[in-house]
């Protein structure tokens, strides 16, 4: 393992049983590494398994097969007691700031909960002081201590969720669509905050998003997923300026540009709908929607291979 790797995922699969025969193949044989102090974005459409992968990486979902290691320890199947020390180092910020905060708890109690669970502070007074510190770090203030979630706007609630996630000084945070429920002007405030915290505390993020347009600013590397498989993984600028996998190209092309002069004259439209993860297509999982699919794509599954400075899983680039 390289020195600066924080999390390593090896052949990870997550399946959810539907009945004795059928199961949802949410994540299939995914391997990737997250380096220390980097922001890795995980993008794809709904149902592609990106949230499941994110949650499996921090053991909120038990993987069916494969291994996740954090620093030097394998955390998959680690006994709960031993895992306790690792849990505090990995936190999560959820998408929906309305559903992820307990409506009956004050802001102080919400943010103090992780501190109390791990007995970080000696007295309740110290805990409160630490909560105020955290509130200030995310752009709120001590005035907000005894308010309840419903008294805040969506952006402010997301700030509370972020304060809770950084309370234990974690090294790794999974940001699961942290801005998709927010309006544009507020969305940028939260992205700025996340980036600022990442730089200030040397955090590592897995930034999950369905929206490629919000990723460019925050991510160092981007990983594109389709139906439980990785398609392309590389540096953000490489992916944005020269996407290779057909799916990545479709995703980037589909973003509506806020400039009528850049209206697409001839649209590259993806035909059809997402295939079912219960019964994924044979060979390359994208072949049913891919305009370049050949016989090989229908039968043989492409592997992630290095091409032009990034990793791609596509037969088009096999030599």
């Amino acid at each position, binding site marked *: 393992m390289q020195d600066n790797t924080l999390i390593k995922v090896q052949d990870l699969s997550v399946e959810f049983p539907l009945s004795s025969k059928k199961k949802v193949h949410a994540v299939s044989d995914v391997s990737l590494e997250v380096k220390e102090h980097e922001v890795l974005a995980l993008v794809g459409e709904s149902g592609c398994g990106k949230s499941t992968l994110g949650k499996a990486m921090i053991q909120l979902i038990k993987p069916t097969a494969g291994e996740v290691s954090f620093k030097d320890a394998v955390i998959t199947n680690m006994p709960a007691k031993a895992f306790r020390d690792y849990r505090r180092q990995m936190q999560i910020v959820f998408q929906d700031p309305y559903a992820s905060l307990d409506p009956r708890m004050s802001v102080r109690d919400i943010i103090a909960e992780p501190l109390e669970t791990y007995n970080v502070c000696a007295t309740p007074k110290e805990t409160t002081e630490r909560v105020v510190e955290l509130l200030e770090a995310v752009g709120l203030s001590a005035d907000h201590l005894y308010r309840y979630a419903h008294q805040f706007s969506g952006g402010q609630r997301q700030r509370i969720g972020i304060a809770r996630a950084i309370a234990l000084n974690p090294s790794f945070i999974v940001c699961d669509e942290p801005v998709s429920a927010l309006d*544009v002007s*507020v969305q940028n405030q939260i992205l700025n905050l996340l980036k600022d915290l990442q730089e200030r505390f040397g955090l590592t993020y897995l930034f999950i998003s369905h*929206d490629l347009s919000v990723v460019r*600013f925050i991510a160092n590397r981007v990983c594109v997923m389709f139906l439980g498989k990785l398609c392309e993984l590389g540096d953000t600028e490489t992916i944005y300026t020269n996407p290779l996998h057909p799916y990545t190209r479709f995703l980037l092309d589909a973003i509506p540009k806020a400039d009528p002069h850049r209206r697409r004259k001839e649209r590259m439209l*993806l035909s059809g709908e*997402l295939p079912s993860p219960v019964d994924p297509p044979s060979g390359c999982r994208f072949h049913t929607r891919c305009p370049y699919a050949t016989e090989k794509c229908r039968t043989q599954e492409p592997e992630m291979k290095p091409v032009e400075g990034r990793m791609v899983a596509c037969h088009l680039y096999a030599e």
Partner: protein
Amino acid sequence: MEKMTLQVNDLCTSFFTDKGEIKAVNHVSFDVPKRSIIGIVGESGCGKSMTARSVMRLLKYPGKIVSGSIAIEDKELTALTEAEMSNVRGEEISMIFQEPMTSLNPVMKVGKQVQEVVLLHRKVTKQEAKKEVIRIFEKVGISEPEKRYECYPHELSGGLRQRVMIAMAMICRPKLLIADEPTTALDVTVEAQILELMKNLRDEIGTSIILISHNLGVVAELCDYVHVMYAGRIVEQAETFELFDNPKHPYTIGLMNAVDSLEKKQGVLDTIPGTVPNLLDLPEGCSFEPRCGKRCEKCVECVPELHEIAPGHLVRCHACGQEV
């Protein structure tokens, strides 16, 4: 003069709550020319959906149209009885919503739900109605229409459900289609398909469309005219190219900078400081004044009027003077 499909004049819609009157739509006027797509953009709570619901007269208690007129061609909608309005809905104006799952009946086959609309508005047999449903399903790009006719909503993907909603809305060839955030719940690749479909329907059937969206990209892609709303009022309106080339209102500029700056690779993203004002407690002057970088004394004192700064380009701002 151009023929108008819809003319909204000085519309005010309020919600009368225990805490006071919420002016959700505040003196809003706009026209929808025939065969055009007009966009209404703004952030959540700006009144864009309530404008649409007022046109459909689908406001929920305690919401009420306080004043103003809404005319489709020459028919004044605010004067109609509830029964007359029922005939207008679906026949002359129809609406699609953000979340197609909650707008469809979960225990009824989707084909039947669309057939119901035909049977309600036309004197046809069930057989004929079914044929028509299958024809419209084909038109809106539903593959295997006969098979989909027999499906329940939960068996369809989000994109297909939205296509069913569009089929239902378009089957009586309405003069006006109101699409309230039609692609917000969909993935980008599906969103592109649905936007393309709406454009084709306009071209083929000639329906005018009001597209309501928070997404400037969606609006830039599809609309001929754009109205920007903030805290219940239209703050800027112009033809799409003019608006995006020459935004004048500080709020419009702020929104556009926020979106454009996402292409930045480092530094800090542009934001609009502060938050949307409480509609129960609107500032006396311009509602954007507390967040505005160009504010002056006049902005605190009185609400600016919409004034024309270039042909067809109207702005509600004291700072964007009559310089043009």
